[in-house]
C-alpha cells in the first residue's frame, strides 16, 4: 500500500485535534503553549504534503511552512516571556486563576 496525500492529511488532522484538545483543557500555561506548538507543527505537515504531492516543482508550500516556523518561534518567545512576567507577578501560571481581565 503506497502512502498518498490523504495519509499525511489525516495524520495532520489527528495531531491538530490532539493539540486542540490539550490547548482547550489544560490549566498550566506552559502546557497550553506546547499544545499550540503541536497544532502549528501539524499544519506544517499538511502544507509540506500539499507542496510535494500537488505542486511538486513549485515549493510554495515549503516556503509557507518556513514562514509558519518563523511566526511560531516569535510566538513562543513572546509567550514564554509573558508567562514568566505573569509568574513573577502572581507566583502562579494556572490559566484559570489568571482572570484579571476577565469580563
Amino acid at each position: 500500500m503506497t502512502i498518498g496525500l490523504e495519509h499525511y492529511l489525516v495524520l495532520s488532522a489527528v495531531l491538530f485535534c490532539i493539540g486542540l484538545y490539550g490547548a482547550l483543557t489544560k490549566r498550566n500555561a506552559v502546557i497550553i503553549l506546547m499544545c499550540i506548538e503541536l497544532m502549528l507543527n501539524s499544519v506544517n505537515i499538511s502544507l509540506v504534503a500539499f507542496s510535494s504531492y500537488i505542486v511538486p516543482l513549485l515549493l510554495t508550500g515549503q516556503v509557507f511552512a518556513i514562514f509558519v516556523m518563523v511566526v511560531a518561534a516569535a510566538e513562543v518567545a513572546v509567550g514564554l516571556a509573558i508567562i514568566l512576567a505573569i509568574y513573577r507577578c502572581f507566583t502562579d501560571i494556572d490559566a484559570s486563576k489568571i482572570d484579571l481581565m476577565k469580563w
Partner: protein
Amino acid sequence: MGLAAAFWIMAVVVVVAALGVVFLRNVFRAALALVLCFITVAGLYITLSADFLAAVQILVYVGAISVLIILAIMMTREVQQGSPSNRMKLPAFIVAAVLLGIMIYTVTKTSWQIAAESPLTPTTAPLATKLFSESGFILPVEIAAMLILATILGAIVITREK
C-alpha cells in the same frame, strides 16, 4: 515499501508523543514528549522529500524552542503540580472529535489532483531562489526579519526586572 514502513512507524510515534504531551502528569516529561514529536515531524518531512525543512525543524524546534520551553518549566517549577485539566474536559473532547471527524471526512472525500512529477529532491537551492528572488518572496522575508526584531525587543522588555 521502505517509505511506507517509515511513514507508518513515524505516524505511530508522533501520535503517541502528542498524546503524551497532553496526558502525561509530569510537565517536564510532557516537554520531552514534545521534543520527540518535533524530531519525528522532521522525519516526516524527509519522507516528503523536504530535506531543508527537516534540517530547519531540527535546528529551530528541537534546538531552540524546546530549550525555551524547558527553561520556562524550570523557572516556574514551584507551581507545577502535574498538569491538571479544567472543567471543560468533555466539551473540549466533543469539539476536538467532531472537528477530527469533519476533517477526515473532507480529506477522504475530496479527489485531489495529484501531480505526476516526482518532487524536487535537493530543495535548498530552489527554496533560496524562491525566497530571495525579485519575483519571489523577498518582501515577506523582510517583514519576517522585522517581526523577529520586534519579538526580541518585546521579550527583553517584558521579562526585564523593574
